[in-house]
């Protein structure tokens, strides 16, 4: 029974239908939470006693950095599924997450640099956290480039899956870099094991923004995967049938 569900999950047709039903609700909640989280952080939260208003970048910086790492972890899982069980959908997920992950990794780096200028007095330092995050961006770009460089979906998906798995070694380095090395970057603000060090009026908008960014990722990943499925499966009967009755409903 469980195997049947697993394989049904891997069916592009089933995925296309179910994701079409989820998408409007996910998009609505993502939009609401983004406006709430970022609006609260930008307009209503009090300024930091030490950093003043520049700290408001945190509501963009921390969620995008979290998301960039989480997307990579998800890609590694998708890569393993794609390599072991040869499930098409896992490969599509891997391919579609890479540009989203790269864009949020870029956002984390850029917002970090902009925040660094008034706080540390410099845009960039070759510090462990910053460098390992830059390596993450290069891993994303490498996966995107590798896909583009290889003709033929099968060979490309295998190569990308292997690169995604190898790159996982970078994730613990990013996470623990602030503990292992003496870095300029501050330690973790949010910890599961201890009470938050932030005031609740700053913590809430941050938590909402983090959830909002994860939801946003789910929305844009589904959108990308649906477009990719249509393009890959364009010769199948179900895609042809999907377009026949009313082409505007897609």
């Amino acid at each position, binding site marked *: 029974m469980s195997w049947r569900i697993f394989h049904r999950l891997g069916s592009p047709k089933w995925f296309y239908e179910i994701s079409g039903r989820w998408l409007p609700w996910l998009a609505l909640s993502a939009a609401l939470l*983004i406006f709430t989280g*970022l609006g609260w952080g*930008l*307009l*209503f*939260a*009090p*300024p930091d006693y030490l950093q*003043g*208003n*520049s700290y*408001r*970048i945190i509501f*963009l*910086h921390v969620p*995008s950095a979290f998301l960039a790492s989480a997307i990579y972890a998800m890609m590694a899982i998708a890569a393993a599924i794609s390599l072991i069980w040869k499930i098409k959908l896992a490969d599509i997920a891997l391919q579609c997450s890479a*540009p*989203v992950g790269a*864009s*949020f990794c*870029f*956002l984390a780096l*850029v*917002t970090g640099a*902009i*925040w660094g*200028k*008034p706080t540390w007095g410099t845009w960039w330092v070759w510090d462990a956290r910053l460098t390992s995050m830059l390596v993450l961006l290069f891993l994303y770009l490498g996966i995107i480039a590798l896909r583009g460089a290889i003709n033929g979906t099968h060979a490309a998906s295998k190569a990308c899956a292997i690169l995604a798995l190898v790159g996982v070694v970078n994730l613990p380095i990013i996470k623990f870099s602030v503990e292992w090395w003496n870095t300029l970057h501050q330690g973790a603000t949010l910890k599961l094991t201890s009470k938050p060090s932030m005031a609740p009026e700053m913590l809430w908008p941050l938590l909402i923004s983090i959830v909002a960014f994860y939801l*946003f990722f789910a929305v*844009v990943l589904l*959108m*990308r995967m*649906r*477009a*990719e499925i*249509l*393009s890959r499966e*364009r010769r199948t009967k179900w*895609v*042809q049938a999907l*377009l026949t009755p009313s*082409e505007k409903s*897609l």
Partner: protein
Amino acid sequence: MYFESVSSLIDMGGHGLYVWTAYGIGLLVILYNIGIPLLRQQQAIRSIQIHRHRTKKAITTSERSVQMVRSGPDGSRCSPDKATDTATNKGEVL
């Protein structure tokens, strides 16, 4: 709202340029991530439609050429198929 006036919101105690640049880039990243899949979806649908249009056209053309062979290009010459058809019809009439 924490800020008392629009100018203090823009200025943000001297950090306005940093904060607003960061949020501007954030907005661009969000818009990019929404725009690209919408574009891809449209492209995929269009390529399927074009492909189908071509296949339809190819089918109609091949049907037409089959008809041409059957009836003859100027109607004077008959293909064997047509000949048999006519013969049978004549036979039936007779």
